[in-house]
């Protein structure tokens, strides 16, 4: 495995690891690791450092609502979806935004403080954008796994403390 990939794998699991710690675990030196990480940042491979929040376990977060919204778009001649995509991505409520193959075009993840905020975003803002032909909103009821992390894991180990 390439060193860059090994660094990314470690940071994806724990973005707080220091360059020194990374260099120890990968058996490399700190200067080299720092240079590689800087390059990954400069090249935009590492877009940013973030955390995964399990809102279910967090009092303030508990009320936040998220919805996945399927969006049908009429492509514009020459521009395709790009113009509409730019406008949609700008909204702060939009957390993720993808162009998909299949029966609809965009999948966006929208977050709001309550259901009304998300619904009014959809009816007021999203639907009124020219060339958006229709939307289907799915509210997220429960998260089981986010970015590869299984939430709420009960991993009480049953290993013996000493074994051969």
């Amino acid at each position, binding site marked *: 495995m390439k060193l860059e990939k090994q660094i990314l794998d*470690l940071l994806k699991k724990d973005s707080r690891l220091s360059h020194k710690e990374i260099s*120890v*675990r990968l*058996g490399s030196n700190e200067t080299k690791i720092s240079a590689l990480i800087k390059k990954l940042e400069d090249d935009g491979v590492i877009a940013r450092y973030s955390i995964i929040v399990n809102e279910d376990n967090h009092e303030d977060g508990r009320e936040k609502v998220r919805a996945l919204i399927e969006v049908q778009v009429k492509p514009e001649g020459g521009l395709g979806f790009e113009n509409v995509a730019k406008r949609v991505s700008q909204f702060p409520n939009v957390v993720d935004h993808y162009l998909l193959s299949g029966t609809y075009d965009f999948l966006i993840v929208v977050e709001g403080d309550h259901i009304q905020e998300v619904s009014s975003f959809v009816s007021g803002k999203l639907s009124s954008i020219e060339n958006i032909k229709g939307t289907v909103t799915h509210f997220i009821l429960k998260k089981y796994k986010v970015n590869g992390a299984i939430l709420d894991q009960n991993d009480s180990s049953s*290993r013996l*403390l*000493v*074994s*051969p």
Partner: protein
Amino acid sequence: MHKRSYSKLLDKVPPSGIRKFFDLVMGQKGIISLGVGEPDFMTPWVIRERAIQVLEKGTTSYSSNQGIPELCVSIQKYMEKRFNCSYDPKTEMIITNGVSEGMDIVLRALLNPGDDVLIPEPSYVCYSPLTVLTGANVVSVPTHDSDFVLDANVLESSITKNSKVLILSSPSNPTGRIIPKEQLIEIAKVVVKHDLWVVSDEIYAELSFDDEYVSFASLPGMKERTLLLNGFSKAWAMTGWRLGYVCGPQDVILRALKIHQYSALCAPTISQFAGVVALDETATEVEQMVQSYKERRNFMVKRFSDIDLFLPHPDGAFYCFPSIKSTGLTAEDFALGLLQEHNVAVVPGTAFGQGGDGHIRCCYATSMKQLEEALDKISKFVKKVRK
């Protein structure tokens, strides 16, 4: 002589050194344990999923003694691709209840009372007792003067006129050492010269961090003399599934099968089906686990060097075997002190036979957080006793 007396051979097997320590540790709370001998991963999900399907379908009867044909074929392909060893799935392998059973039936198939078995020590705990139970004698081959890598010259000088079997174990539990190819070739010469059988425990073969692993059976002329033992416990994190296999020359396999069919009948059928998925479909998961052990290995090497305890380079498996001689304590006193003062459990090297004194076995198959805490405590303890 009482009619209701017990096996005399069994009396020759000393009580387990690990067991002794286990009892001590179990009496204490809040332990950070570097004393385990198994992975800290769960079995990869696709393997567990397959077992669930098998249970749902109700395929829960005995398999043939040898094992299910699908798994034998998967093993054949795996051994060929991964280690360049080719075995006939019909006649040259047996699926066993882990390497543990494989070791037992192979030794029983080969040995007579009075034969000598060469065991490089320190070694994994089952080799010597299983040898003794056949009525054969253990000849311990020291490895501590060559940083726990078996040296062909030392082997040669340990040969007796009754020497019949050499047990190889690489990567080694407890030392994490791997015998490099050049040394294996020298060992092979001694094996030929003295016409020995080799029982090669390669259960940690996948966990080789620095170099491509070389199976002893893949060396020229060695396949005919080698009983190769491998299994799923370590690289696939399947210790509780009890699944392993023996590969070797047909004449030995036939004999070992005779024992297996009466004493085990077959390996767990559910595990066997799951084992097919393990070999065929989980290369990525295994690679990720190996990478994670390697990162922790690197961490251990760095920390023991910072503490200034000599550590024979841990090439593989998930153990390291630092020397604690510079502290002036025996392995047992060190382990006991560390447990009582800092709640950190390691296993004294003496539990693994001759040459283990002055060393402790630390298993790093545990979370980085625990390792960091454990190493901080070991560091503190070492500083204190050195003063």
